[in-house]
């Protein structure tokens, strides 16, 4: 029996067409198997932000993670924070910081990132951006990457295909930009998340640069920290989006408490018209209520007037190299106490 099967196979393989189909089936079987065994990483390749999250998940040790939008991505320099914390307290010299900010982060994405981040063992501080513009965002998407319901036969078949074939489900991972991202996953431990290849440059920049701050600058960089007061029932003039917003932070806070991770919130610096918008009384009230609800301190760096061209990129919404360095040093001192408290725990 065995001999006859071998004979049939040998004859079949002599046929070039049969060999062609056999190899094709084998290749796609291997691709399918590889994806099934590395589902999280393959899923993450589909998007820049997801890759960053996956890099964080794959890292051996991270003590502090910052998550938020592009303002966080451009504003936080993990090397500077490690350096500053180390200079303030020798015990914190080897503290490991990761910048998980990513451009275009929506509220649901923020929730997803925070949830995944809190699952990582050993995390001490989770710093989450509170973003003013999101309070007005009425385009609320209830679930992250949710599948649309089937509407006809074709949709049904496509849904079934992606349900059973992971090669189809994660098909966007075969795009050139996705494939180019794959080395990032292997560099997870050597990256601080801001930008993979910028790490050494920034270290050099920090060592070499001498930033001249004026008295006005120093005054402006003073933190405004909103400490939590008594837990309050959330009520907001902005109604539904703000309510959803608060619920997300409340859920993050609940999970952080369970995981024994210190949570603190921050509003990144901004200038121009957004500054005025983010610092009106309505927003301040909401920031305070979010702090109350989550029982976490909120660092309000948004409502300070900084020199636009000196600290910001041309869009006035994102910090430049100088702004990033200065703010990272500033925020390091603000999180020092919670970190020490956590270490004592």
């Amino acid at each position, binding site marked *: 029996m065995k001999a006859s099967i071998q004979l049939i196979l040998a004859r079949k393989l002599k046929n070039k067409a049969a060999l062609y189909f056999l190899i094709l089936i084998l290749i796609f079987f291997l691709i399918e198997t590889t994806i099934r065994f590395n589902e999280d990483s393959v899923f993450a390749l589909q998007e820049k932000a997801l890759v960053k999250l996956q890099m964080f998940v794959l890292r051996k040790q991270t003590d502090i993670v910052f998550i938020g939008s592009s303002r966080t991505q451009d504003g936080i320099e993990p090397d500077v924070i490690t350096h500053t914390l180390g200079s303030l307290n020798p015990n914190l010299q080897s503290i490991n910081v990761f910048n998980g900010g990513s451009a275009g982060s929506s509220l649901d994405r923020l929730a997803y990132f925070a949830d995944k981040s809190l699952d990582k063992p050993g995390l001490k501080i989770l710093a989450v951006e509170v973003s003013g513009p999101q309070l007005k965002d009425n385009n609320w998407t209830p679930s992250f990457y949710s599948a649309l319901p089937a509407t006809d036969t074709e949709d049904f078949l*496509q849904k079934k295909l992606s349900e059973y074939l992971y090669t*189809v489900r994660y098909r966007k991972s075969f795009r050139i930009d996705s494939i180019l991202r794959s080395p990032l996953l292997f560099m997870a431990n050597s990256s601080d998340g801001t930008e993979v290849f910028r790490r050494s440059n920034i270290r050099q920049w920090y060592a070499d640069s001498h930033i001249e701050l004026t008295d006005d600058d120093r005054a402006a960089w003073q933190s405004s920290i909103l400490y939590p007061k008594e837990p309050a029932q959330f009520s907001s003039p902005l109604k539904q989006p703000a309510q959803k917003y608060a619920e997300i932070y409340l859920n993050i806070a609940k999970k952080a408490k369970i995981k024994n991770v210190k949570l603190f919130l921050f509003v990144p610096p901004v200038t121009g018209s957004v500054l005025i918008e983010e610092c009106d009384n309505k927003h301040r009230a909401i920031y305070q209520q979010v702090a109350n609800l989550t029982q976490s301190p909120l660092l309000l760096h948004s409502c300070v007037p900084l020199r636009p061209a000196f600290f910001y990129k041309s869009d006035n919404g994102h910090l430049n190299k100088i702004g990033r360095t200065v703010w990272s040093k500033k925020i390091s001192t603000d999180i020092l106490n919670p970190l020490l408290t956590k270490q004592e725990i």
Partner: protein
Amino acid sequence: MLFNSVTFVLLHLLVLAAYWASSSQSLRLFFVGLASVIFYGWFYWPGLLIIAASIIFNYFMALKIDHQRCKKWLSFAVITNFLVLAYYKYISFLAQSFVDLLAFININLELPDTPQWLPLGISFFTFQIVAYLVDVYQKKIHAEKNFLIFTVFVSFYGQLIAGPIVRSHEFMPQLKKKLSFSARNMQLGFFFFITGLMLKVTVADTSAQFVDYGFSNIASLQTHTAWATIYAFAIQILCDFWGYSTIALGSALMLGIKLPINFDSPYSSLSLREFWRRWHITLSTWLRDYLYIPLGGNRKNTQRNLIITMTLGGFWHGASWNFIIWGFLHGIWLATERIFARRENFMLRRSFFIDLIKKLLVFHGVCLLWVFFRAQSFPDAMLYFKQLLLPPYTFTDPIPSALSSLIILFVLFNKKVGNLLVDDKFLSFSTTRQVSYTTATILIILAYSQARLDFIYFVF
């Protein structure tokens, strides 16, 4: 049911299994016929009534013509077919044009009720049937007596909706003999199928997004974005139709049936005449054999014949003045080319640079005429020409990187892909190369396929 759908792939797989498992040719044809009914009825089932009536009518008319050799019967059958086509496809346009014309002389009429739907592929199967009737009359073939074979000839799902337009003397003999399974045909058919799918769902549908945006916002286009958009349309229309034809070729080949190729790198043409020998080849040859030659062909009034043939060819594409103008201008260009081609020294000695210049001129000329093809109306077309050609020339808006990449990749690879789709060249490659090409094609389809869009030629 679209070629670029899982439903079609499933149907085709079922047909393949049933077809090759069947012991008799009649049973095989029955399965193909049944699949064709499902395929056509899937879009809009009342359309089946039109095509069924057409099959029954033309089956008996062909027998009658073959039996009596009477020109009256041929005329009756051809006119009836064209009247049905005219009723569904052109009546609205003709009525609207008539009402507009009367309104011009202050006679206002209300537009009468006209058909609200167009039976899919009616232009294709009408042309196919008319060619068959003429061939029967001219004794090139005998009328097919087997109703099942005739049904499959008209309604074969592989090419029913958008061609290629097959000739009865090429197609019917393949349906009559029982073919033995060929793994090579299966392999080549599979490769054609996925390559056609890649052309459609990645190249054509990606281009479509830019084209749709550009032609919906003509006034906001700048000089370079207008050119980029028309390049994108040139890519879209080629890959859409080329993709469809290649899927048709592939799916037929898997059943052992060979269909004629419809495209042969048309944008590499050195003249418009060559372009039409490489673009929609089965339509061009149909127009040549059944319109241009009967009009007199090259024997007398060549220029007039060319202009009439191309104008009617344009009208075949759609019931709109834009298509008529498009066809007419192609006719003018062909006629002019013919005049100069007759003069000595017109054809410069061939060299790489002269050929390149000719290719660029022909390609850009074709692109300019595509404006009429794509614009929604004549004023839109004129506005588009203004953005393309007239000052102020502004270049401040960036061209989306995806569009630039698409154009560059198309220029680099379209000829290479085209070469793979001619005859059985693919089979001459080593297995490693075959597998690499196929794997890359499938991964490109998976990675870059867009939302399902209809094929452009469905509306013709």
